[in-house]
C-alpha cells in the first residue's frame, strides 16, 4: 500500500476534535428521529427490536397454549402453529437478539467505551437503522398478507419452504426472504461502523488490551457477522429466485401434490450448507457480546478484576475463528457425506474448551470478591447457570452419534433455548439494569428488578430444563400435536401443560419489567454519573446522560486497563481508566 502520511501525527488522534467534524442536529427531527448520534440510534434499535421481540413472545404463548392443551384452542390450527414457530424463531434470533446486541448495545457502548465522540460514519449508521426498520416492517407485514407468514420453520429449508404444502407459500416466504436481504444490507452498514470505530477511533492510550471485554465481544461478533451474513444473503437470493423465477438452485425434480414440478437437479443440501455456514457463527454472534457484557457486569459488581483477562480475550478470538469450521454439526442427520461427521464432531467439541475457560474465569472472578448482589449481578449469575446448562447439553448434540437420536426432538429445542435464548436474554436484562442509569440518568426500581429476576430466571429454568427430558423420551419438535404414539406416556402431556403454565407466567411477568422501565424514567432515583463505581470510560462522561459528542471539549486519555478494582494501596475500590497514575502509587501486580 502507498504510505503517504495523512494529516495528524500517526497513531495519536488529536484529543480535541474541531467542531465541524461532528455532525450537529439542527431540529427536533434530526435530533430524535433522523439522528446520526450513535446513542439515539442505539435507543431506536433497542426499542424496535424489543417491539418486534414482544410480538415473538406473544407467538410463543400461542404455541405453548397449543402444546400444553392440544385441542382446547380452536383458533390455532396446524398451519398457524407452523407460522408461529417460524416467525418466533426468526424474530428472536435475528431481529431481536442480533439487532439488540450489535445495533443496540454496540451503538451505545462502543463509542463511549473506547472514548470516541461517535461512530466513524454517522450517516451510514443512521441509514443502517432505517434499513433495519424497513426489514422489520416487511417482516411484520407478512402477518397481514393473503396466506399469512411463512410456516417453513426458521431454517427455511427448501424444497418445503417454497412449495404449496407449506403455509405462507405465496407472499409469506417472498417477503420473509426480502426482509432478510434488507436486514443484511442494513446490518452491514452498521457493522462497518462498529468495526472501524474500534479499529480507528479509540482514544489515546486505549490499547486493545485495555479494552473492556464488552467491546471485545461486540467487536469480534461484528467481524463474524460481517463475514457470515453474506452466506444467508446468498442463500436467500437464490431461494427467492427459485420461488419467483423458477430457477433450480436448490430444487431437485420432485412431485408437488401429485404433479411433477418444473424444478430439477437442484440440491437442498447446498442450501443447508449455506444456511448453517451463517447459522452457526450466528450462535456466537449472539453469544460473544453476551460473554463480553457479562464479564463486565461480574467484575464491576464483584468489585474485582476479571480473572484471567488475557485468556478471556484469546478465548473470544479463538471461539470466533473456530465457529466458522463447525457449521455442519447442524447437519449430522441431513444425509450429507457421513465421513464429515468425524471432522465436525471434533471441531465442535474442541470449541467447548475456550468456552469452558470463560465459564471458569467468571466463577473464579467471584472467588474472594466483594459481591454486591444487585440486580445486574443476579442476572449475571442467572446467565452462568443457564449458559453452563445449555453449553453442556451442546456437548451431547455436538458429538455426532449422540446427536442422531436427539436431533429434531424437544431436546434440541430445550438446548438452544437455554443456551441462546434464556442465557443471552439474562445478559440483555442484566445489561439494561446496569446501563439504564447511564442512558436515562435514573436508576431502575430495585425491588421490582429483583422480583423480575427471580420469576424470569426460575421460570425459564423450569420451562427448559424438564423439556430436555421430553426430547430424551423422543418427543419430536415442530409438532402441532403429538397425537397417538405408544412411546409417549400421558405424564408427558402433563409436563407439557406444566411448561405452558410456567411459560405464560414468565411471559406476563415481563410486564413488571416494562412498567419498571417506564415508571423509572420519570420517578426513578437520580443515578449520578457513576452509580456502580465502575472503571470503564462510559461512566466517566462529563454529563449523564452523555451529551452530543460524548466528552465535552476534550477526549479522555486512558492510563490503565478496564479492571482496576480493589487495587491494593488505593483508597477507593476502583480506579477509573482515565485517572492518571500517582507517583507514589505503585501497583504490585498479584500475578504469579
Amino acid at each position, binding site marked *: 500500500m*502507498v504510505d503517504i502520511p*495523512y*494529516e495528524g501525527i*500517526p*497513531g*495519536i*488522534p488529536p484529543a480535541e476534535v474541531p467542531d465541524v467534524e461532528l455532525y450537529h442536529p439542527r431540529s427536533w427531527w434530526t435530533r430524535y428521529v433522523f439522528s446520526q448520534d450513535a446513542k439515539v440510534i442505539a435507543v431506536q434499535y433497542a426499542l424496535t427490536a424489543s417491539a418486534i421481540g414482544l410480538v415473538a413472545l406473544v407467538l410463543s404463548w400461542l404455541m405453548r397454549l397449543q402444546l400444553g392443551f392440544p385441542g382446547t384452542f380452536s383458533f390455532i390450527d396446524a398451519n398457524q402453529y407452523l407460522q408461529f414457530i417460524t416467525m418466533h424463531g426468526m424474530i428472536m434470533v435475528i431481529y431481536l437478539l442480533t439487532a439488540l446486541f450489535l445495533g443496540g448495545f454496540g451503538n451505545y457502548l462502543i463509542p463511549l467505551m473506547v472514548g470516541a465522540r461517535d461512530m*466513524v*460514519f454517522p450517516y451510514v449508521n443512521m441509514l443502517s437503522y432505517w434499513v433495519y426498520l424497513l426489514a422489520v416492517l416487511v417482516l411484520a407485514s407478512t402477518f397481514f398478507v393473503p396466506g399469512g407468514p411463512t410456516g417453513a420453520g426458521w431454517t427455511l429449508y427448501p424444497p418445503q419452504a417454497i412449495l404449496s404444502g407449506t403455509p405462507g407459500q405465496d407472499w409469506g416466504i417472498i417477503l420473509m426472504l426480502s426482509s432478510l436481504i434488507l436486514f443484511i444490507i442494513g446490518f*452491514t452498514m452498521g*457493522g*462497518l461502523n462498529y*468495526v*472501524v470505530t474500534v*479499529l*480507528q*477511533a*479509540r482514544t*489515546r492510550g486505549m*490499547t*486493545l*488490551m*485495555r479494552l473492556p471485554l464488552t467491546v471485545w465481544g461486540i467487536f469480534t461478533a461484528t467481524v463474524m457477522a*460481517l*463475514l457470515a451474513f*453474506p*452466506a444467508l*444473503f*446468498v442463500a436467500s*437470493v*437464490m431461494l427467492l*429466485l427459485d420461488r419467483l423465477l*423458477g*430457477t*433450480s*438452485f436448490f430444487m431437485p425434480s420432485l412431485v408437488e401434490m401429485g404433479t411433477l414440478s*418444473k424444478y*430439477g*437437479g*437442484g*440440491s437442498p443440501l*447446498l442450501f443447508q*450448507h*449455506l444456511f448453517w*455456514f451463517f447459522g452457526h457463527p450466528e450462535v456466537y454472534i449472539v453469544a460473544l457480546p453476551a460473554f463480553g457484557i457479562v464479564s463486565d457486569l461480574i467484575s464491576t459488581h464483584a468489585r474485582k478484576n476479571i480473572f484471567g*483477562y*488475557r485468556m478471556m480475550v484469546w478465548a473470544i*478470538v479463538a471461539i470466533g*475463528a473456530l465457529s466458522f469450521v463447525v457449521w455442519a454439526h447442524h447437519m449430522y442427520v441431513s444425509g450429507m457425506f457421513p465421513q464429515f461427521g468425524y471432522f465436525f464432531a471434533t471441531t465442535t467439541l474442541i470449541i467447548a474448551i475456550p468456552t469452558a475457560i470463560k465459564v471458569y474465569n467468571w466463577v473464579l472472578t467471584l472467588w474472594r470478591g466483594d459481591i454486591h448482589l444487585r440486580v445486574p449481578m443476579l442476572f449475571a449469575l442467572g446467565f452462568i447457570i443457564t449458559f453452563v446448562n445449555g453449553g453442556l447439553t451442546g456437548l451431547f448434540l455436538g458429538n455426532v452419534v449422540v446427536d442422531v437420536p436427539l436431533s429434531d426432538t424437544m431436546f434440541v429445542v430445550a438446548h438452544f433455548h437455554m443456551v441462546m435464548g434464556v442465557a443471552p436474554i439474562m445478559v440483555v436484562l442484566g445489561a439494561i439494569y446496569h446501563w439504564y442509569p447511564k442512558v436515562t440518568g435514573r436508576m431502575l426500581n430495585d425491588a421490582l428488578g429483583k422480583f423480575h429476576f427471580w420469576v424470569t430466571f426460575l421460570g425459564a429454568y423450569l420451562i427448559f430444563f424438564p423439556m430436555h427430558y421430553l426430547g430424551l423420551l423422543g418427543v419430536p419438535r415442530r409438532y402441532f400435536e403429538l397425537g397417538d404414539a405408544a412411546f409417549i406416556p400421558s405424564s408427558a402431556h402433563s409436563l407439557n401443560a406444566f411448561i405452558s403454565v410456567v411459560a405464560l407466567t414468565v411471559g406476563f411477568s415481563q410486564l413488571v419489567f416494562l412498567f419498571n422501565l417506564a415508571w423509572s424514567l420519570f420517578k426513578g432515583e437520580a443515578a449520578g454519573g457513576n452509580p456502580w463505581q465502575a472503571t470503564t470510560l462510559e461512566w466517566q462522561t462529563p454529563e449523564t446522560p452523555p451529551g452530543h459528542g460524548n466528552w465535552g471539549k476534550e477526549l479522555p*486519555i*486512558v*492510563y*490503565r*486497563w478496564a479492571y*482496576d478494582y480493589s487495587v491494593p494501596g488505593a483508597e477507593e475500590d476502583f480506579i477509573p481508566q482515565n485517572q*492518571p*497514575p500517582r507517583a507514589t502509587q505503585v*501497583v504490585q*501486580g498479584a*500475578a504469579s
Partner: protein
Amino acid sequence: MSAIILFLAVIAVIAGWWLSQQRLMAKPWLEEGPVGDFPGGDTMTWPAAKIGLGVFLAVAGSLFVLFISAYSMRMNVTDWRALPVPRLLWLNTGVLVLSSGALQWSYVAARRYDVEGVMIGLLAGGASAVIFLAGQLLAWQQLGAAGYFMASNPANSFFFLLTAVHGLHLTGGLVALGRTSAKVWRGAEAADMRLSVELCAIYWHFLLLVWLVLLGLLTGWTDDFINICRQLLS
C-alpha cells in the same frame, strides 16, 4: 465450500498478523501509565473511510466467494449444461480494464494535485463503467435471444445471477464515483480529494479482479486450472 474456507483462511491470516502486532501477550494490569510508555496497540493511522472500504471489500469478497462456492457445488450435478459465453464479454472485459486504468490515472493525478487530470480520469472511468454495464445488458439480451433463459438451466441461472450481482456492485460504485466527481468539480481540498479518488480506484480494481475471477469461472477456465492443479498434486 472449500472456496469460502480458503477465503476466510486468508482473512484469518491477515487478522492474525494484525493481532500479532497488538501485544496480546502483554499483561495490561502491570502496564499502568501514560500514553506512549507502552509501544504497540495504537489505533490505525489510515483514515476511517479507507479502513471502512477495506472491511467492506472483505464483506463483498465473502459474498462473491460464497456465490462461487455455491456455483462449484451445483455444477457437479448432471443437469448442468454450460452455456456459450457471448463474445461480447471479452469486449466488456476490455472496457472494464480501461475503466480501472482510468481511475488509476486519476489517482496518480490526484497525488500530484492535478485537478484536470483527476477530472479526466474520473469521467473516463465513469463513462467506461457505464459502457461496461450497457455491454453486460446487451450480452444478456443476446443470450435471451438465443434461447438461454434464466430458469432453463442452472448454468444460465448462475450466469445471470453472478453478472447481475457484479453489475449491482459496480452501479453502487458509480454513485460513489459521482459524489467524488462532484466534490472535485466543486474544488475539494487536496488530501480529501486524494482520499476519495484513491478509494474509488481501489474499489474499481477490486471489482475488476472479481470480474476476472467470475469470467474465468463462467468460461470454464477455472475448471481446467483446478484440474491441472489436481493432476500436479496427485
